[in-house]
């Protein structure tokens, strides 16, 4: 999660780095406070757990960020994860001998198909994103139910190789963390070094102007929802592998977390603004809060309130820092 170098010359790079300063500082302070109260926090296992826990969130939040940068939102990610996880788990149960890599590709393809449906409705059907994905949020969830008829796939029905997909550590770090890092690097590259990536910012920044500038706006919008589906499909496979099960309510409510990670990470909800490091930090902050609250033995009844409060504080602090930076 090291800060990546921005592609811009000096001064802007400094500002861009500063843009993530607020949340970084907040994460450090929070981390320090937690470490003081819970020594278990500063252990390798715990760091590994945090990374594991935010891997899936990071992947989906990055895709969500791309959507938000186009001034959209994808509320259906959680249902896409639920549906693809169920379908993949069914396939794995049916044919345990399937090579894991094909399952990953299958999951991504299934997710991409669902995302493409969102994309068509939103870009070519001109349905506002929040409405379209609010609709598919319940439609896809309904499909999970219809698909499985209420059956859950449990740990014993899944092959070991599939479970190891997320947790194996042949490269030192758990596979899932590596997958997330690679994914983040790809997104970073895509957003900053390809025309299509820049088009995403342009479309979010001023849709009409993008059209005038010769950008195929509908195609770009379609693409981000497709990517969001694809990322959700990938996340679904990892989810089923990590949690060793697929249930009708898998990932229920996860959409708000991905939005939270993106906006806490500085992605502007009105489009045009957002960076990969920012989103990763946003996901890290959420993962940190979730990890830390049980560790510091905050009463379980207080945890949700604390979580909300910390998110609010993070956003406010970030905003204050950004504003004072502008004032100078």
């Amino acid at each position: 999660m090291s800060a990546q170098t921005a592609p811009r010359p000096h001064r802007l790079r400094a500002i861009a780095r500063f843009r993530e300063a607020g949340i970084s500082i907040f994460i450090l302070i929070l981390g320090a406070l937690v470490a003081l109260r819970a020594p278990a926090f500063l252990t390798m296992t715990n760091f590994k757990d945090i990374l594991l826990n935010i891997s899936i969130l990071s992947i989906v939040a990055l895709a969500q960020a791309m959507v938000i940068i186009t001034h959209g939102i994808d509320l259906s990610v959680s249902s896409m994860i639920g549906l693809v996880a169920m379908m993949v788990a069914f396939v794995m149960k049916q044919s345990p001998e399937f090579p894991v890599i094909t399952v990953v590709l299958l999951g991504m393809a299934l997710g991409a198909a669902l995302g493409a449906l969102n994309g068509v409705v939103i870009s070519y059907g001109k349905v506002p994103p929040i409405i379209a994905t609010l609709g598919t949020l319940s439609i896809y969830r309904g499909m999970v139910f219809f698909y499985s008829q209420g059956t859950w796939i449990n740990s014993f029905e899944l092959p070991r190789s599939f479970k190891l997909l997320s947790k194996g550590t042949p490269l030192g770090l758990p596979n899932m963390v590596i997958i997330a890092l690679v994914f983040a690097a790809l997104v970073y590259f895509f957003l900053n070094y390809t025309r299509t990536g820049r088009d995403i910012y342009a479309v979010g920044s001023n849709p009409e102007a993008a059209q005038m500038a010769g950008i195929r706006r509908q195609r770009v919008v379609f693409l981000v929802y497709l990517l969001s589906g694809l990322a959700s499909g990938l996340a679904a496979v990892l989810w089923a592998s990590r949690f060793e099960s697929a249930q009708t309510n898998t990932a229920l409510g996860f959409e708000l977390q991905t939005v939270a990670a993106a906006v806490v990470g500085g992605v502007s909800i009105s489009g045009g603004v957002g960076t990969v490091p920012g989103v990763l930090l946003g996901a890290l902050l959420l993962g940190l809060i979730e990890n830390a609250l049980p560790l510091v033995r905050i009463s379980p009844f207080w945890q949700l309130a604390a979580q909300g409060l910390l998110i609010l504080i993070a956003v406010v602090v970030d905003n204050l820092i950004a504003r004072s930076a502008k004032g100078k």
Partner: protein
Amino acid sequence: MTDYCLELKDITKRFSTVEVLHGVPFNLRPGEVHALLGENGAGKSTLIKVITGVHQPDGGEIVLNGERVHFNDPRESREAGIAAIYQELSLFPDLDVAENIFVGRQPTTRGGLIHWRKLYAEAGKLLASLGVRLDLKQKARHLSIAQQQMVEIARAFSLHARILIMDEPTSSLTLNEVADLFRLVRRLRDEGTAIIFISHRLEELFELADRVTVLRDGYYVGTHPLSEVTRDDLIRLMVGRTISNLFPKQDVPAGDVALKVENLSYPGVFENISFELRKGEILGMAGLVGAGRTDVARAIFGVTPPTSGSIQVAGQPVQINSPQEAIRLGLAYVPEDRQAHGLIPPMSITANLSLVVLEQCARHGWLQDKVECDKAFNAARQMEVRASHIWQKARELSGGNQQKVVLAKWLETKPRILILDEPTRGIDVGTKAAVHALMSKLAAEGMAILMISSELPEVLGMSDRILVMREGRMTAHFTRAEATQEKIISAATQSVSAGDVQ
């Protein structure tokens, strides 16, 4: 007639039931600057948009290089070699200046990745050739209208199109930038580019254009070489009558001090601005693009309150923290960016006109439709807003008519102090004369007017006194008698080492 690179035949365009172009012909030769002229709402911008594929014509045909074409959207026309700067600026606020220029076609390395270094280098070169000094990495969000216009121009030039269309590119530029722009346009023309140029500043047409096509009310009036017509001819063709007395500011004995500003500062934007504005007086404010005039106006009006300095209204020291308070004190501000700050484009003309005086159209908070409607109708009539009815949406109006709505809206508040920021930007000569007459009348009735304008003839003709700003500082102060074009330009461009002028 095959030497035309673009030919329009009997173009008709309707918006729902209203026909706004009635069989308009137009042609363009390579290597010429062809001006398009007409009153506000005559259909110039619409014609442009038909050419570039923003709108599709309802009748007639477009022939490009001898071939009939049909563009579904601007991208297709662009691929066919047509570049355009539209009247409504369309930058990407969250992208920086350099990327705005190259958006959608950033230079890439051999691997197909964006070559950022090259992009900045080329953007820098381009802007330098336009004589613009802009931070390449500044987000477009922070640019003034004029600066945005320059970026748009740079973008259009960078396309190397065979046909370049510019819809009022100079409406908020000052002489220097205009001169730079014209130099470049001439060079392109000499290289064989065909250029369509729209402006309400007639002098510019004479300076730059080879031929002019005049539209009136969506009808084609005629095409003439500029060498064969006079200014008065053009005006007559446009509006069907002659207009005399372009800058009719009467001399009015200045009254009490209405507004007094002392040492107003906003670090990094403007410093130590001090002036007095009296009743019955028009104070002109001149300066180059980005000199900070708009920022001063916004500070006075409470949009972005200054960090230090004092303001007195009618002798009373005041603290203005929001436009609301400013309005209560009798100030009105006609902003330069009418799309973003002046209008609510999706709402009706009526709603726009009544917005600032809504309380007057209501009893105990309940809207009185009749009152509102009457008020709006009278205001629109007085300002000669051209629209089918007052319930038409503001965004459907032509640029000039939008400007009239903004002016009318602020005059509704019957302000004691009126701040005008580029008041006649995009307004046709006829209406401009009317606006100037109106300003003169208002001043005569005791209104104090601060007029920011980038059009020097306007500043010279209308102002009792003139302030010049440069890089956030006041550099000169002239009375009407002292002021000349040269003096103003020199004050606007050369920094005065001795510090601020009182």
